[in-house]
């Protein structure tokens, strides 16, 4: 678990995705190869803006152990402005979420391995009140 999370720190703390210079498509999570261009793909790492909109969501009432204290909570499909769609917890009340609402990335705790274990951090989303 420890090395698995450590390897992903860069991509979880910040939305570091990839961009195919051949076809202009952004990917998150990052890909080593562009599935459209295959051998022609020219992949480079990019920092995504962290801004996007909700395209669908679900309210979780039956939560896994690390999330029990937050239930009911919102998990949303968020389309980033660059294009990729990602699944993330959306930190707001279940009644606040709307399809199409603008959201932005925020740094939060994902969970922890008990009281003596490691703490996991990463990106979640919150409503972006300024422009929604």
């Amino acid at each position: 678990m420890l090395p698995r999370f450590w390897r992903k720190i860069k991509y979880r703390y910040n939305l570091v995705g990839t961009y195919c210079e051949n076809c202009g498509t952004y990917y998150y999570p990052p890909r080593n190869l562009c599935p459209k261009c295959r051998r022609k793909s020219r992949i480079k790492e990019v920092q995504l803006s962290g801004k996007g909109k909700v395209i669908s969501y679900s309210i979780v009432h039956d939560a896994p152990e690390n999330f029990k204290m937050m239930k009911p909570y919102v998990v949303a499909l968020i389309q980033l402005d660059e294009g990729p769609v990602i699944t993330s917890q959306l930190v707001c009340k279940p009644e606040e979420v709307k399809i199409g609402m603008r959201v932005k990335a925020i740094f939060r705790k994902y969970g922890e391995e008990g009281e003596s274990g490691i703490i996991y951090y990463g990106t979640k989303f919150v409503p972006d009140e300024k422009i929604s």
Partner: protein
Amino acid sequence: MVGIVSYGTYIPKYRIRVEEIARIWGENAETIKNGLGILQKSVPDFDEDTATIAVEAGREAVKRAGIDPKEIGAVYVGSESHPYAVKPTATIVGEALGIGNEYFAADLEFACKAGTAGIQICMGLVKAGMIKYGLAIGADTSQSRPGDALEYSAAAGGAAVVIGKDGVIAEIEGTYSFTSDTPDFWRREGQPYPSHGGRFTGIPAYFRHITSAAKGLMEELGLKPSDFSYAVFHQPNGKFPVRVAKMLGFSTEQIKQGLLVSHIGNTYSGSSMLGLCAVLDEAKPGERILLISFGSGAGSDAFSLIVTDEIEDFERTPKVWDKVMSGEFIDYGLYVKLRRKIKFG
């Protein structure tokens, strides 16, 4: 010219009122509000801690500075509620801010003044030419024993400042510290909540250190209270900073803008730095600001800052007071859940 190049702040959105805490413990809310000068305090969400607060404040500071994060050569995070007893918060911040791997870093602890201690370290490194920019953060999710007087004030929040020589919005014209071994407030290793000396936290601790640091700095720089447009003192409650201002000869006008404690409580390492940021939100070129932190145990760091012309073009929204005045009220039940004060056995 060494000074503040940029600043950023973060205050969690939840608030709990003094009335709500007093209701649970059978105390008189009006007496407490009058005694402490606090109406409500901020409460972190379940997935927030000192590291997440430090990252959010740091991100705002770096974004407003408009610098490449890799130009930051030092990260110091001051807190008395670091998520780990062993494992630095500073590395989490460095990674989340994209600072790279070549930077000096450490976590600092000096009760409520660890953030300003970080400013002094960064100043020294910048002055020595060892780094271009340094990031000093004060952030806390302070603990308090249920039913203790501290529960009305122990809050959460943080502020980050970028220290450097280029693009300085507020020059630090001098700094001075007054330190002594005074056990007014402490938390032993492994203990969940801090203990304090009650009234002993006043005269021998807060007032002695702040007045000594203020006088020491003003004497060194040949300044008097009327030379400052603003003064910010550490804010453990609403009463102490007002009284210490009066003792030193500062007016209510000078301290008003930076006095946030009545609406968010004591954000510990974030407290005086958040007050400074609220002042920087409004300050005009040429104005002089006095900042004095206090950390139990005990010590005070004093700074005299002069606002430069650069502040005119500096992005200052969203403002600290807007963050302070926003928020959502919760009840005591949700508060103890969010603060993990429920024992599941």
